[in-house]
């Protein structure tokens, strides 16, 4: 199985956490809360578009919203494939990190 990238993992988690309220600005805010960095919109959309093509997320559009000048919002939702991709990455994470407690340079050097 091809693993998702770290950026995809973070975005996918943000979409998951937002539970239906995931669209551009909220995803970006969620990522800020998670990792303390604001990502550029371009990076987020690029990853979302790829993940949409792979079937990890689903894109839906809302009704026209007056606030947006009468245009739609595009919401993202995680799919079952997306969930299993996240599970897979988590499993691999924990198995890869298994057995490592204190990660220090000195210890390794000894």
């Amino acid at each position, binding site marked *: 199985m091809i693993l998702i990238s770290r950026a995809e993992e973070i975005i996918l988690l943000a979409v998951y956490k937002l539970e239906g*309220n995931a*669209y*551009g*600005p*909220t995803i970006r*805010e*969620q990522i800020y809360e998670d990792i303390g960095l604001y990502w*550029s*919109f*371009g*990076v987020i*959309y*690029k990853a979302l*578009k*790829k993940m949409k093509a792979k079937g990890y997320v689903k894109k839906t559009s809302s009704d026209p919203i*007056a*606030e*947006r*000048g009468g*245009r*739609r*919002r*595009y919401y993202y939702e995680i799919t079952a494939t997306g969930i299993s991709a996240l599970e897979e990455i988590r499993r691999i994470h924990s198995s890869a990190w298994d057995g490592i407690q204190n990660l220090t340079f000195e210890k390794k050097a000894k």
Partner: protein
Amino acid sequence: MGWNSKSHIREESQINGKKEREIPSYPLPHPQTASQGEDFYEFSDDIDEIFQHKASSGPKWKARAWYWFRVIESIPSIIMDYIHWRLIMIKNYLKIALRNFQKHKGYSFLNIAGFSIGMACCLLILIYVRHELSYDKYHQDGERIYRIVQDIRTQTANRIFAPVSPMVAPTLKADYPQVEYAARIIPARSRLVRREATFFYEDRFMYADQELLDILTFQFIQGNPQEALIRPNTLVISQRIAHKYFGNVDSLGKTLEINQANYEITGVVKDSPENTHVKYDLIASLRTLKDWNEMSNWHSTMFFTYLKLKPNVNVEEFSSQVSRLADKYVGEQLNNWGTVYHYFLQPLSSIHLHSQFSFDIEPPGNPVYIMIFSFVGLFILLIACLNFMNLSTARAANRAREVGLRKVVGAQKLQLISQFLGESLLIAFLSLGLAMVIARFAIPFLNRLTGINLIFDVLLNPVVLLSLIGGAFLVGLTAGLYPAFVLSAFRPVVTLKGVQRAGSRGLALRTVLVVVQFAISVVLIIGTLTMYKQFNFMKNQYLGFEKEQKLVLPLRGGIDIQKNFEAVKDMFSKHSSVTGVTVSSTVPGRGVSNFGIKLVGEDDSKNQSMFHMYFDDDFIPEYGIEMVAGRAFQKEMKTDFMGAFLINEAAVKAFGWSSPEEALGKRLFTGHGGRTNPIIGVTGDFHYRGLQSQVEPLVMEFLPWNFRYISLSIDITDLKDTLAFVRSQWKTLWPGHPFERFFLDTDFDRQYRADEQVGSVFGIFTLLGLAIACLGLLGLASFTAESRTKEIGIRKVLGASVGGIILMLSRQFTKWVLLANCISWPVAYFIMFRWLKNFAYRTSIGIWPFVLSGAFALLIAFLTVSYQSIKAAIANPVKSLRYE
């Protein structure tokens, strides 16, 4: 202040009510398609949403700055995103293209083969043209280097000489401040070069002034270019000569013996490039000849004179100043003779292609051939392009479903066009690669054929390589544009329903393409046939003398038979197979010299310059030259020896006499040695030069000074024995000189070699052009047969015969080829008529080349088509109708 999504959503309506919307102008290009539009609005509206919030709750400039910052930081990802999705599409196009190649191997082969052969022809022609155009372009400051040539006008004649008087160079240097350097060259062909026991004749020998090294560019390996040719008897040699005589390059200060005189080597230079008109192997200092009386003669024309002007000299002004430079010194004398010496400058780089002067260093290149070959190259490429267009459009129906499906799932027309253009570009680039390989292996073959030393490596220069890739791109584009438009214009509803009739599209256009291809091919074939006809004509034309069974021994390297020519003749006539021996200053086909001649009693203004030949009393009978009036030289007549003239009929006309008899007894004064003697006979006009030029006036004398050739009339039944005899006699006579010989007929025909080489190269390209056209026809024929399978099936069921069907399928192509003939005949006639004008003696064009090439094209076309036709005609109708 941080923006919080939750609070923002809560306040949404409030914001809207209170504030007006801020409209930031979109910094992004406006979307063009629906799918792009969704991405675009998602992005811009998302940012806009936050922007509105920020603008209403804080300072506007801050909001704007924020907005712009988000846009700019996103740009790299947007670009990456675009490339990512593009690449996926291209991968798909490539996959489909390769699948198509594999599925239709035959067609792909025809396409690529046609293209790559066409391109290979073009590459070879490109190499040749570049070679011809690159002559003498490598010299430093080449734009300031000129050759000065001399137009000699008498009242009756006018001839431009490439070589001029030895006085010109020193005079120019002394009298004209614009001249930076001036140097003379006197090429002396065939010198006997000896070092101890190693001796050979060397052809590329010349005397030159020291300043030549400052004018033309030589690459010195050893020696000092500043003083290499200052002293008498010094010599600069090429690397090749150094290796040949000394075994290595290091030969500075050593001695070579040239025609019995010793020369000290003062320089070794890199070998002469191929693309210069002054090819050199040995350059001796002109100082060596300082005691020669010709050196102060204003009327001699033997010295090629080169100048380097100072920078920023007005060339036109200078040119008009030097035009009459001799008048200051010998003006009075020239006036008395009624002769004008008119000098003019010739830019160095134009010497090879744009001078047709007498006595040039080497025969000049012919710009006409460059043009002809460039056209041939373009034509062949055109044929290959038409082929591609033809096959691609014919096969369009096979791709119709793909196009339909692509359109249904949302392909844009532009996308489809770029897909098909991409395919043709792919083929073009593949073909370019193949063409390079073909050209690489064809070059040695071509070199052997043409005698030109072309080098493949000129193509590997990055500029050329880039322009080749550009060229392939253009070719791919040209060939692919039409099919791309045809293919992308299919309507999905029609194609997916499957009612599109295969290949019915663009039938008229395809016909035109095939006709044009064949028309070009037929023009090329007619050209080839006419050329061969002319060469044959020149070889078989009676020349006014016997050229068969003549063995000629050139006397080179200072062999002098002035005193003992009778004894030498006796030596060679001792064998029974040698039926006659004669000695002469030249033989037909070899150079003739030109001297002034005057009729005694006439004033100086009637002074003419004519070709001279010198031979003994046996020459006229041995060569079978006809006497029109008077008698030939006779041994018994002691006065004939250096005391009589023969002239040819052309000279009779030049002197203005009405009949040859009138010439007899008239007295002539010759400029060569200054003798006055009577005319004793008039010969017929025999061709002492090739048939390209008219027979010009000729004066003949029995004069032993310049005997350079021994001609043996031999019986060729026992050639080996005869040759062994001649060689052994030579060894006894001149043991220190290599034995050389040639047969007059082959030597004479050598004059046509340049033209013949062009002819054979032209022939090869013609065949290739025809081959490409046939590839196209083959593809088309098989396609037509394929698309008419059902029709043929039904016809057979209804009782059509195999022959009838073959005829039906071939008739169409026959019609096309006939039409092509009709177009090409007048064109070919016009072109070949112009070409034949190059020859003074020429064959008539005649109907045969036309009929033959028409028939040939028809035959080839028929053979090409017949395989497919027969296959289609004998197919079992059950098979072809089974799926109906």
